[in-house]
Each structure stands twice: as structure tokens, then as C-alpha cells.
């Protein structure tokens, strides 16, 4: 039974940990992220295309290009040695490329989805196709990058051999999608016309507001418990760095993404056009693996699994990961489950 003297003791212990943790914080040094060796093979404006060093003698002949979201930094997929989706894929024998969109500034505010998909992404895909003398490559899209991959594939199906989507929103208006409900009431035109590029802090506020008690309170109370352990503290700070390392969003692309996807749900309504070309999911006829997280609070499973109803492919596989939107990259179980599932699925279609 909770007693007054016990409360004081707990409060004292809590304060003592914070005090001791200040010393650890003072000595922790730089927080490094992105651990797998790689090289930049193509650059264009703010974009960099990386190729990771293979970790097996004879990697897969067809490379896989990871397309990350615009709203966060892609090093989440390669956070630290024992928490790296990319490292897992390399260990499975895949040849991995990654698109890093960079940090847009005011001069990029008029970039549209057409520029991102039919421009930057298409040129990256063409670069890899040329380098490997291949007609088509494999795509792995993550979160918003998964939506982009679907759109790209619908626009250029001949350039994609297999498509993997991870925690990817497809139906943006399922009833349990809180972000979607909030977004529908926003005056997106006023936002973009006023702010130009939409600041990352604003998006972060929205993400944190999804679970305010846990993400802005409990998490930091939990942190007091690991303040004296430099390894755990560094892992925490690494994740913290990623969460708040939020690029601003190029204004016009943001306007289109919010209006077309969240507010008008064009992808599932089959009314999406990008750069004057129809991006219909029925054109996605190659094999598709859709990986979603059952506890995802940002992209509810309902938003992802809707893909099955709309995609044109007859070879559609869904994989449910028991975890959340972040856990699917960094949890211990994810390291064991996700890369083998993806590699095995691609391997079975490597003909």
C-alpha cells in the first residue's frame, strides 16, 4: 500500500537519479546515427542517392531502392548497429540503395509531387537501372515513402520489378486515423500560402499530440531510470535526435499531399493524377509485399491493408508485425523478423 514515507523515498530516488544522470549527460558526447558503410552515388539539388556496401560476397543481382518519407530523416532505418533494417537487409544478401531527400529550404518551396516522383525519384531509379543494366529494380517504400513508391510504380510500372511497402498509408480516411481526422479540418492553402515551407516543428507537434501523456510526459519520467546507464541513455538520445530531426516540408508538395491524400483520398478513389498522368493503383501489377504494424498509431493497420482491395497485382502478400510504427525498425523482434521476411519474399520472385 502506498505510504507517505515511501513516496518521499521514491521522489528522492528519482531526484538522485536525475542528479547522477547529469554527470552521464555531460560525458555522453556526440550522438551518432547511420552506422552502415555507404557511398553517395548520385546527387541532385538536396537529394543524395546512397549505395550501401554489400555484406555478402555475391549480393542479389537486382538492387532494392529504399524510398523514405519526406517528414523524417531516413537514418531511422539504420539507427545503430544492433537496430538497423538496412544492415539486416544487407546481411540477407540484398544490394541496397537509399534515397535521402535532404532538408528543403525556402528556394524549394515550389517543388511539387511531380518533381519528387517523376523527377528526382525517377532519375534515381533510372540511375540504378543504367548502373546495373537492368530494365527494372525492386522498390521498398517506408511510410509516406511507401505511398510515393505506390504512386511511382503506378506511373512507371515498367521500371519496378517487385514492390515492398512498409507501414504505408493507402486509405487515408479510415475511421481510426486520427491524423487524417485532424488534417481534414485544416486550412492547408492558408498554411502553405502563409508559411511557405511547412516547418518540421509544426508536424512534430501534431505527431506528439497523438499520444500526449506518453510522448511528452511518461517518456521523460522513464528516462530518469536509464540516466545512469550510458549505453541505454545513448540509445534513448539517438531516438530522441531522430524524432526531433524533422525537415521542413516543401510547401507545394505538402499542399498536394495533404489535399490529395488526406483530404480527398484520391489514391483509393482512383482520382490521383501526378504531372498530368493518372496514378492508378490498378497499374501496380507486379508482386507486392505490404508490411504493416498492428499497433501503429500514425498509420493504423486499416490504412495500410486497404491496399489489397485496390492494387492491380495478383501476387499480393501482407505481413503483420506485432508492434508500433517505430518498433518495426528498431525493436529487437523487428531485427529478427522483418529483414528475413522481405529478403525471402524478394528472393522467391528473383526471376
Amino acid at each position, binding site marked *: 500500500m502506498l505510504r507517505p514515507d515511501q513516496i518521499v523515498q521514491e521522489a528522492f530516488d528519482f531526484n*538522485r537519479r536525475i*542528479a547522477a544522470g547529469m554527470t552521464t549527460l555531460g560525458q555522453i558526447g556526440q550522438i551518432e546515427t547511420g552506422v552502415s558503410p555507404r557511398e553517395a552515388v548520385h546527387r541532385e539539388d538536396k537529394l543524395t542517392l546512397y549505395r550501401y556496401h554489400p555484406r555478402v560476397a555475391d549480393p542479389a543481382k537486382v538492387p532494392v531502392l529504399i524510398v523514405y518519407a519526406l517528414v523524417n530523416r531516413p537514418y531511422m532505418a539504420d539507427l545503430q548497429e544492433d537496430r538497423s533494417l538496412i544492415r539486416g537487409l544487407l546481411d540477407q544478401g540484398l544490394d541496397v540503395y537509399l534515397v535521402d531527400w535532404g532538408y528543403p529550404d525556402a528556394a524549394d518551396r515550389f517543388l511539387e509531387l511531380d518533381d519528387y516522383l517523376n*523527377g528526382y525519384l525517377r532519375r534515381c531509379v533510372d540511375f540504378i537501372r543504367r548502373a546495373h543494366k537492368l530494365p527494372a529494380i525492386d522498390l521498398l517504400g517506408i511510410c509516406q515513402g511507401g505511398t510515393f513508391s505506390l504512386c511511382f510504380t503506378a506511373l512507371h510500372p515498367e521500371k519496378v520489378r517487385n514492390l515492398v511497402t512498409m507501414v504505408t498509408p493507402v486509405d487515408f480516411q479510415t475511421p481510426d486515423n486520427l491524423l487524417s481526422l485532424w488534417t481534414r479540418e485544416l486550412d492547408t492553402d492558408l498554411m502553405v500560402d502563409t508559411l511557405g515551407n511547412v516547418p518540421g516543428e509544426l508536424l512534430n507537434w501534431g505527431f506528439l499530440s497523438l499520444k500526449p501523456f*506518453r510522448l511528452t510526459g511518461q517518456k521523460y519520467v522513464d528516462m530518469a531510470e536509464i540516466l545512469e546507464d550510458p549505453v541505454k541513455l545513448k540509445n534513448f538520445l539517438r531516438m530522441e535526435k531522430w524524432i526531433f530531426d524533422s525537415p521542413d516540408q516543401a510547401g507545394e508538395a505538402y499542399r498536394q499531399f495533404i489535399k490529395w491524400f488526406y483530404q480527398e483520398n484520391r489514391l483509393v478513389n482512383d482520382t490521383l493524377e501526378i504531372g498530368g498522368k493518372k496514378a492508378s493503383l490498378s497499374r501496380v501489377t507486379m508482386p507486392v509485399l505490404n508490411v504493416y504494424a498492428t499497433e501503429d498509431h500514425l498509420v493504423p493497420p486499416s490504412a495500410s491493408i486497404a491496399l489489397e482491395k485496390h492494387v492491380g497485382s495478383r501476387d499480393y502478400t501482407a505481413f503483420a508485425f506485432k508492434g508500433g510504427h517505430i518498433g518495426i525498425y528498431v525493436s529487437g523482434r523487428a531485427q529478427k523478423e522483418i529483414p528475413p521476411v522481405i529478403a525471402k519474399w524478394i528472393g522467391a520472385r528473383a526471376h
Partner: protein
Amino acid sequence: MSSKASTDPGDWTAVWADAQQKYWQSWLDLSQQATATLTRPPEPPPNPWTQAFDFWAKLMPQAAPPENRDWIGKLTALNKGYLQMGEHLWKTLSAGQNPPPDPHAWWEMVSQGFKSMQDGFAAPSRDSQDPWAGFATFWGMPIDNWRRVCSAYSAMPGDIETALRGFMGPGAGTPETALSRWLSLPTLGYTREAQEEMQRLGQLWLEHSQALREYAGGALAKVSAKAGESLMAKLHELTAQGKTPESLREFYNLWVDCGEEAYAALAPTPEFTQAQARMVNTLLAAKRQEQKMVDEFLSAFNMPTRRELDTSHKRIHQLQRQVWRLQEDLEEAGIAALREEVAGLRRELEALRAESNPSKGGKSPRAAQPTA
């Protein structure tokens, strides 16, 4: 503390830890004494733990190495809410008979104290000029976060929303109306247009303050009340089974679960989503007006304005797109030319093969030669 000591992280944290230990030991002694003698402890000063924490929170960043100050300030502020909860629980449990004889007596004590605890968290601090202070601490950060976002975007010095608080605080209906009327006065004379713009800005900031108040004091306060009810119901359920939370941390975790449940139930409702959208949209409208005024000011000094920069960026972007298209066209044209060349070479090769082997239907080399 000497300047030398302040640069050594070991020294200042040791001093801080030592001071804390003494402080907490005194409270522990007090609690144990009350428990041992079954007497009520002496009346503590109001909020001694959080006051002490505030004091440290101010001192520590100054003593800490500069690169860590931001982190330390953040950490101390974020953990204050947890200590506040402990403080209220301590007061509640100390005020009754020590130790509580059974879970039901414990429940009686906690349920009586909880209401004042919740009021204390949800209501603005008595000493604070900031109506959201208690609320923000209670919640962790959402409103505080929002205010930081607002301030970061403001083109004006300072935080206009904060400046307007005097007119917008609880029970400030009359000054607010008065300000609104003042902002609606017809303008006169040489500076009439500038006055109108300023009045418009004032009105928009008032609208944002009103929207913020509706969001924090209305939508979020409902979540807070619902979370409180839910916590009481869960504690009641526990005590009915003869159990109580075994630690402050367990109590806090239960509170967080109840808070998230209440929030998850109310956040998708039209009332909440509209209140949140109004808060964002009104802020953006005020910012838009600010930009317009700043642009006019810059224009008067013959300096580049945001509109001009946007125009330039747009034109550069249009040019860049044209260049991309031309490159693609060139690439495509180049490939077409190469294909044509390859086809021509193939034709030539076939002709040569046919000439060299007339038995297979080809013409003789002489006949194949072009005439001059």
C-alpha cells in the same frame, strides 16, 4: 561555486546531489516520524517539493557546462509534473491517519484528496501570470509545445499571444470586449491605412487567443476531467479487490493510461478536431497579416520582401523544370538518333552480306555499288 568547479561536470552535480539528499532526507524523516507516532505531520509550506525543484531548475543550467544547459532545463521541467503528483499524494496521505489501516481507508483518503489534486493541476497557478501554467505542467507539454511553435513563427518581437493574456484571462470578458471594440474603431487621417492593418492584426490575435482558450480550457480540460474520473474508477476497482498501487510510479503509470484512454476517446470527436483546427487556422491567419505588414515595411525601405522572394523562387523553379524537360527531350532525341543510326548500320551490313554472297539471292558487288 568557483568558476573552475563549474566547468567540471562532476563538481556541480555532486553539490546538487548533496543538497537534494539533505532536502529529501528532511522530508523522509518527517514522514517516518509521523508514521511512527501516528500523529499528523506539521503543516508543510505550499508546494515545497516543486518549489525546491523550480529553484534547482533555475540554478542548475547556470552551473552546468554550456552544451548541456538546454537538456538539463528540459529534463527538469519535464519531470516536475511527476514530482507534483508525488507531492499532492504525499500531502493527501500525510493528512490522514498514518498508516492507513486497510485499502478501503486508503481509498477514502485518496478519493477525498484527489479532487483537490486535480483542481490544483488543472487550475492556473495562483502565483503565475500565465493561465496555462498549471495545465501545461500537468499535461507535460502539449500547450507549451504549441506556444513554442507559435512564438517561433512570429514575425513580431515577443509573443503577441502572451501579451494579449491580460485581456483574455479567465473572467476577463469585459476587457476582451473592450479591446475588441477599440480594435473596431474607425480610423482617421494620414495614417488611417496603417492603423487599419494594425487593428486587423489585433483582431486576428484576439481570435487566436480565443481559439487557444477554447482548445486548452475546453477540449483538453474535458480530457483532463475524464482522465480523473477514469483514474478514480480504476482505483476504486483495485481497492474493491483489496489492492492499491504499490508505488508512486505505479500510480503515475495508471494515471497516464487513464489520460491516454480519455484522450483517445475525445480526440477524434468533431468538437475536439474543430477546436484544434481553429487554433491552428487562427494562428496562420494572424501570421499572414503579420507578413503583409512586414512586407509593406520592408518595401518602404526598398528592401526585398517575402512576396518578391517567392516570385523569384517560383520563376527559378519554373526554369528548372523547363531545363529538366529539355534534358529529358534531348535524352529521348539522342536515343532516337542512336536507334536510327543502328538501324542504318544494320541495313548496310545486310547489304554487304548480300553482296559478298550473291548465291543466296544477293546482288553482285558491282551491281550493289552506288552509281556516281
